[in-house]
């Protein structure tokens, strides 16, 4: 509280010393003056903030205009309250201040005038403030929406870029890997075999990376769909082990083994391709980070209930281990254990992030337990429905049978790319099948009219007429007894392409690049199904 001087005969606050502090804490301004002379006695901090000049000993005339002072005097005379409004710039803003003056009588001799002021916060004032605010909010919202649209468009462009890049990259990879496989069939020296193996494994790695990037962009766009099919888990895990073991050098001192807690498991419904992908990723990671000891892939059934089994899948290694605080980072895209990992172990840093997303899609989560220097355990549990189809009609065909069953068949290869036609031709050259080629859909139809064709390997994107249209036209030309097996051979890995192929009347899809053996067994399976409807 600002006080004039001690000699002023003020008894209001002389008894309570706390009062000045209390008045300073109020959120409105206070000013006290003599009611006869209108000389200012004291005022609180807020009043001082509003009127920066020194107010002590001044008269009210010095701060309010003469009309206001005249009316204050009149109100004093009539012993009335008097209200008035003043506009004043306080800090950065022009404020409307509501004042009111009233008489305070202590006794006959001691009469004071108390003036209180507060920043106007009437409804109108508040409404204006809120209106201003809402204008800003609307403007901000528009800016945000614009930014979101832009970001979404950019993300979409990125996904499209990734998808088309993956297509563009797969086509030459098809050439490389196809030729490598063909190369094995020639007479090679030991040195050449070693060189060609290196080309093949590098090519496989590159293809895996392309697939990972594509998977990642699909996950980001919620484009991944699970396709459940009856699956033998034991078989699937053994497959994973043999695939991953193949990449381990024979000189390596690690032991890769499976651990089944039961002799036999019921067939269950699961997306076998995706489950395999996750397990391969986890197992390969474990192998990558384990120099000695063992890597174990374990399957245990936790419970069976109501045609549903709960399984736990674990990959346990005796590798370098992971520090506790780094575990969550493992699953972030493009991150690895540390940046040195990329240098010494390679990889895109997408594998675990993709695996985690896939397992989440299946309704679970990958959990990590690890001790540095001792090893890690990656595990997840899945509740999977038991397949109604338990009896297995095992078709244990070996490659010799596959080759012989194609003998004498007429195969039409349709592709606009010369190298692709060559690869497909080479893939079939041991089968003694008769090979025809066409460079677009229209030519394929011409060939179909001229020859009796058993199998067509159809590219999708071709000039003049694409694979969809050609397939539809060929299906129209067929008679009821005659149904040609048509396989799509495409580098486009999206679900839509797959669905469109089937809708056009194709029997199955092969993704380029493909392994010759897989192509042969697919064709064979198609022929078998055709014979036994």
């Amino acid at each position: 509280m600002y006080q004039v001087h001690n000699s002023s005969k003020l008894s209001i606050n002389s008894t309570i010393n706390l009062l000045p502090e209390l008045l300073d804490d109020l959120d409105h301004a206070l000013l006290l003056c003599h009611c006869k002379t209108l000389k200012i006695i004291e005022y609180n901090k807020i009043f001082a903030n509003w009127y920066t000049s020194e107010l002590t000993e001044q008269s009210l005339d010095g701060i309010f205009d003469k009309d206001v002072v005249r009316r204050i005097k009149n109100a004093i005379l009539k012993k009335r309250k008097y209200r008035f409004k003043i506009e004043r710039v306080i800090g950065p803003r022009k404020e409307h201040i509501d004042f009111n003056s009233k008489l305070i009588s202590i006794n006959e001799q001691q009469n004071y005038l108390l003036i209180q002021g507060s920043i106007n916060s009437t409804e109108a004032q508040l409404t204006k403030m809120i209106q201003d605010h809402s204008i800003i909010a609307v403007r901000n919202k528009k800016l945000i929406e614009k930014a979101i649209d832009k970001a979404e468009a950019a993300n979409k462009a990125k996904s499209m870029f990734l998808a088309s890049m993956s297509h563009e990259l797969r086509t030459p990879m098809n050439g490389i890997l196809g030729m490598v496989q063909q190369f094995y069939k020639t007479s090679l020296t030991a040195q050449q075999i070693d060189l060609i193996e290196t080309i093949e494994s590098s090519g496989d790695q590159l293809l895996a990376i392309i697939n990972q990037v594509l998977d990642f962009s699909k996950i980001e766009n919620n484009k991944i769909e699970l396709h459940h099919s009856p699956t033998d888990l034991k078989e699937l895990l053994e497959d994973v082990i043999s695939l991953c073991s193949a990449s381990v050098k024979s000189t390596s001192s690690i032991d890769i083994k499976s651990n089944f807690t039961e002799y036999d498991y019921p067939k269950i419904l699961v997306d076998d391709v995706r489950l395999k992908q996750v397990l391969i990723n986890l197992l390969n990671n474990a192998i990558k980070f384990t120099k000695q000891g063992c890597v174990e892939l374990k399957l245990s059934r936790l419970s069976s209930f109501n045609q549903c089994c709960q399984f736990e899948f674990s990959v346990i290694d005796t590798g370098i281990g992971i520090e506790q605080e780094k575990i969550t980072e493992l699953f972030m895209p493009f991150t690895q254990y540390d940046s040195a990992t990329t240098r010494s172990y390679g990889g895109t840093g997408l594998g675990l992030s993709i695996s985690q997303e896939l397992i989440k899609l299946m309704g679970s989560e990958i959990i990590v337990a690890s001790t540095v220097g001792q090893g890690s355990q990656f595990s997840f549990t899945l509740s999977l429905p038991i397949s109604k189809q338990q009896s297995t009609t095992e078709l244990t065909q070996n490659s010799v049978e596959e080759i012989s069953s194609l003998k004498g068949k007429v195969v039409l290869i349709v592709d606009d790319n010369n190298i692709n036609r060559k690869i497909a031709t080479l893939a079939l050259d041991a089968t003694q099948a008769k090979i025809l080629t066409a460079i677009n859909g229209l030519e394929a139809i011409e060939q179909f009219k001229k020859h009796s064709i058993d199998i067509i390997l159809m590219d999708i994107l071709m000039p003049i007429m694409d694979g969809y249209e050609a397939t539809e036209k060929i299906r129209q030309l067929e008679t009821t007894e005659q149904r040609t097996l048509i396989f799509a051979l495409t580098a486009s890995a999206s679900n839509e392409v797959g669905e469109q192929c089937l809708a056009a009347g194709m029997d199955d899809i092969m993704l380029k690049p493909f392994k010759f053996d897989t192509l042969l067994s697919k064709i064979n399976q198609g022929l078998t199904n055709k014979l036994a409807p």
Partner: protein
Amino acid sequence: MSETLYDKYGGIETFSAVVSNFYQKVLDSEDLAPYFDNVNMENLMSHQTNFISTALGGPDNYKGQDLKKVHAPYKITVPHFQEVAELLEESLDEAGVEQEDINSIITLVSSLMDQIVSSA
């Protein structure tokens, strides 16, 4: 035809502000406030605005009842009437109405004293 006081000071906008300011003053007065204890102030202010507007040459929108009849139950005294008149004067002054015009308005209002005051 000379300009009416109503038009001179900005019509309905000015006088509704004057009336609202005026009633604020009336309610601030410890002596006058009790008269309005059970009164719908919004209605009253709307009536008063129309009354003053009409009196000052504005449009005749006053649909109120007979002045004497409405005020009779309140037993209004002369000093209270005078205080109200002063407050009206102050309100007009604050709205920037010239003293000369204030005087003629107050004269008009004073002429209504007989209809409003009903107690000694």
